């Protein structure tokens, strides 16, 4: 039963990956829609980022003193000025750990 579920879930996931790529031809979207598609990274990733920072494991809002908030702010600040992926992630983690382990 579990195996069947894994295969069905995998098949559906694969469908989500291949559907648009194989079924849509170049002229399917008009220019306006394509402009909206430019925003896809800016709508999908914050939908993962915000809950990861502002909610705990149980889906409740964290308090304003939560180290995740300050880790994220550090990452945004460093990333904005450095434009460097590793520095962004590392500075976020470092400040987060600093708050957890030192304070």
């Amino acid at each position: 039963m579990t195996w069947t579920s894994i295969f069905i879930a995998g098949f559906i996931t694969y469908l989500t990956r291949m559907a648009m790529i194989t079924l849509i031809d170049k002229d399917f979207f008009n220019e306006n829609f394509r402009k909206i598609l430019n925003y896809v990274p800016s709508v999908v990733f914050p939908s993962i980022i915000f809950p990861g920072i502002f909610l705990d494991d149980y889906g409740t809002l964290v308090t304003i003193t939560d180290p995740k908030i300050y880790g994220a702010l550090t990452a945004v600040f460093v990333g904005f000025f450095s434009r460097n992926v590793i520095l962004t992630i590392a500075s976020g983690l470092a400040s987060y750990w600093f708050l957890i382990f030192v304070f």
Partner: protein
Amino acid sequence: MLSKFQIFKIGFFDVAPHLLSVIPFGIIFGAIGIELGFDPIMTYATSLIIFGGASQIVFLQLLSGGASSLIAITSVGVINSRHLLYGAVLSRYLDKLSLIKKLFISYFIVDQGFAVSNVYLKKNSEQSFNYYHLMGSGIILWFCWQIATIIGIFLGSIVPEELGLKFAIPLTFIAIIINELRKLDHLIVMIVSGLAAIFFYNAPFKSYILISPIIGLLAAFLILKFKK
């Protein structure tokens, strides 16, 4: 002109920093699968067959918690529906490829790979073989995810929970969109989708992951209208 292999390598190196979060996440996933009582082969099979980090965790958690298969499968479908958006964006760059190549590349489309390759493809849309960037980023992410899952399965939670490495996930996504923060319209759209995600977080089947991008795209639509 860059060769296919050179472009593949650029894809590889562009996505490499994100392995910083992908590998620990894979190890954590492998360990969670075993902890939840699934056998090693089954846990690993989800990495091979589903290949979608967050959805795999939710899938095993739901099944082990006694949820019906239908609920577990639906949740995976909803969480992974964001690939439809990625596909819609990428379709224009992959347009000329044969069906077989499209079907092959599709399997490797994941968040981080999509994000870095989308930037590259946008800049180099006329370059031939530019899709090798997507293969480079996708295949290395796939490979590391498989290995990390196996490490997690056999070594268990070698990543101490106190480190809170789950937090590396939002950080890696911050790094992905940081350059868009410079544009006011993108910033507004990000805040709208982020707040929507928090608001709808407890909606059934993790559907916030589908609802909040749609709300964000509506905001983008309004901004574009307003700009004209």
